[in-house]
């Protein structure tokens, strides 16, 4: 299709007029109609019907009836004056408007039609080049309104667009726009989903992390237990041997090796008893030796390997004894117990006193805050669900003035989300309810190991801080045998966690304890 540039941008197939006009005049491309009209006027073929006005800047149709019947069929192949006017309008001709009076006194008659165009001038053919068919955009756009997002705009200002001939080439169709919009919506949704998933993943990670920590903990506990078991088994072997029970050679060898370490049968028995009480292993009750006597041959392989793993030689055993004495849980820690349930209070404070702690009890979060404002404690055990103020909130308030005191949550709500909340509120750790004496002990060990009770720190400094191994209260344990049993277990568990958790030397730790908050070091 041979169309002009201005037509090109919006031209669509099926615009018959445009095509015809463009094709019919080879020299004067687009305005054949105008030139034809110009010719008629210049030749002044029908002065009574149509002619230039006097000034030559416009032309006038004097007799529309004759114009329609004579001129149009001959020159324009139709006989429709309205069509002719429409055609003129397409080339941006305008009817010269007149008031009724003007019309009345017009020299061309009341019924004349005057048209003008700035470049349609008498005897000026070259100016005709400037007369261009208005772009079909107006017509097209109005019919395509629904498909065009710029429709409304174009509709309002078709003249501006057409007269300048610059229809925006970056027009986006409504269809395309909707498509894009859908895409954006889709992306937005995907983004939201991703965000959500990301959050979930983070949460999951935190969950896993806390699970991992719990695992590590139980692993350490297990190791402690295992070491303990190995000890007790060694004692048992010695006892049996001393009573003349024959043991398989492998065990016997081992017992010989460690004989010097377990000379005191009574002490061994007591250890055994405490172990049994703590773990509820009924088969280990001393009053039932027959079961054990029949068992050894079956136990041998496992026991043998564990012996070698746990206690390879005398030298290591000595080392163990040494560290045992150094890192035992001291007596005299002052613990604040925040708990609203009478049964739990009794139980927990009983356990704490067993471990040589002094206990103070408050029964809600508010009292916990006021108490901690006034007094210092080595450790706080805090229930979560309490009247007046819950433990987590109380902790976050306490943390505004006390960042040092370890605060342990005691709670039955151990869903992962809860655990994260507690830690976020500034609680150091979580002791899941119900807890055993051992659970409590390992928690005390974790936060109070190698610490000097606040109440004793003063006197400690006065005596130029003697080595810690000497401060272990041996004398007390004699008057209270059960405590001593306990200490032997503490020692073992202590040993286990030490091996796994740190290689910091004793003196380093002591140095740190003096001036730095425990919190920082204990965070894993």
């Amino acid at each position: 299709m041979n169309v002009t540039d201005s037509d090109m941008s919006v031209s669509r197939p099926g615009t018959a007029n445009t095509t015809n006009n463009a094709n019919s005049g080879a020299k004067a491309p687009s305005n054949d109609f105008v030139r034809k009209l110009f010719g008629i006027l210049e030749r002044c073929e029908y002065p009574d019907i149509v002619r230039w006005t006097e000034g030559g800047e416009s032309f006038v149709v004097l007799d529309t009836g004759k114009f329609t019947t004579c001129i149009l069929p001959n020159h324009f192949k139709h006989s429709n004056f309205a069509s002719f006017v429409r055609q003129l309008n397409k080339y941006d001709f305008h009817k010269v408007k007149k008031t009724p009076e003007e019309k009345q006194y017009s020299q061309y008659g009341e019924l004349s039609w005057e048209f003008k165009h700035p470049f349609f001038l008498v005897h000026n053919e070259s100016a005709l080049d400037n007369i261009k068919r208005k772009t079909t955009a107006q017509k097209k756009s109005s019919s395509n309104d629904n498909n065009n997002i710029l429709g409304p705009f174009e509709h309002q200002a078709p003249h501006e667009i057409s007269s300048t001939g610059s229809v925006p080439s970056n027009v986006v169709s409504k269809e395309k726009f909707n498509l894009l919009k859908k895409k954006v919506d889709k992306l937005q949704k995907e983004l939201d989903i991703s965000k959500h998933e990301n959050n979930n993943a983070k949460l999951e990670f935190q969950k896993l992390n806390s699970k991992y920590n719990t695992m590590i903990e139980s692993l350490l506990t297990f190791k402690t237990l295992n070491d303990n078991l190995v000890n007790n088994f060694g004692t048992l072997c010695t006892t049996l041997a001393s009573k003349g029970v024959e043991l398989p050679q492998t065990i016997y060898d081992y017992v010989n090796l460690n004989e010097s370490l377990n000379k005191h049968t009574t002490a061994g028995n007591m250890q055994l008893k405490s172990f049994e009480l703590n773990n509820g292993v009924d088969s280990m009750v001393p009053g039932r030796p027959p079961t054990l006597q029949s068992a050894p041959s079956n136990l041998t392989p496992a026991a043998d390997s564990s012996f070698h793993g746990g206690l390879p030689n005398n030298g290591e055993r000595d080392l163990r004894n040494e560290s045992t004495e150094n890192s035992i849980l001291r007596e005299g820690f002052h613990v604040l117990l925040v708990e609203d349930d009478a049964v739990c209070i009794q139980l927990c404070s009983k356990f704490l006193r067993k471990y040589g702690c002094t206990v103070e009890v408050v029964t809600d979060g508010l009292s916990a805050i006021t108490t901690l404002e006034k007094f210092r404690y080595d450790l706080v055990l805090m229930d979560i669900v309490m009247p007046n103020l819950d433990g987590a909130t109380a902790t976050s308030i306490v943390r505004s003035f006390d960042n040092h005191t370890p605060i342990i949550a005691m709670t039955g709500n151990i869903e992962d989300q809860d655990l994260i909340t507690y830690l976020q509120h500034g609680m150091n750790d979580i002791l899941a309810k119900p807890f055993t004496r051992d659970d409590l002990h390992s928690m005390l060990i974790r936060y109070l190991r190698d610490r000097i009770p606040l109440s004793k720190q003063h006197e400690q400094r006065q005596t130029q801080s003697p080595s810690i191994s000497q401060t272990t209260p041996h004398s007390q344990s004699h008057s209270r045998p059960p405590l001593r049993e306990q200490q032997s277990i503490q020692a073992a568990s202590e040993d286990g966690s030490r091996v796994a958790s740190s290689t910091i030397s004793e003196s380093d730790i002591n140095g740190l304890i003096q001036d730095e908050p425990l919190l920082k070091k204990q965070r894993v």
Partner: protein
Amino acid sequence: MTIPKEVINWSILNEIISMDEDDPGFSKGLIIQFLEQASNTFEEMEVNVQQTRDLKKLDSLGHFLKGSSAALGLQSIAWVCERIQNLGRKKESGFSSTEDLGSMASSEDVTEDDAVYLDAIEKALVQARHEFSLVREELSEYYHCEL
């Protein structure tokens, strides 16, 4: 999630009983205290199911008794208490269908919805009392006296 077979977890209770060594009667005193506490709590739950119909309160009562019963190793009571707690939070439906867990955010017919949970709690409370009588029986036998 089914109720524990043994009403008492003796490895936990034994640990408490071992405290009697230097404080004779410690465990028994604690048990008696608990039994009293449990009876009172059951009464209070009953009132909240029948009269005040307060799910939130039932949640906290369940939580409360769960704590002390679990601490003493009375695991079956603790289990039922946890169920009451969850029902009070509408986290667990009476028919244990998982769908209900997700769509508990905004139910329009609140009162009717509550009734389902209150019903379930009522049943759980009957069970709790049953477990309680079993515990009392077993402990009475252990301590050789009527508790």
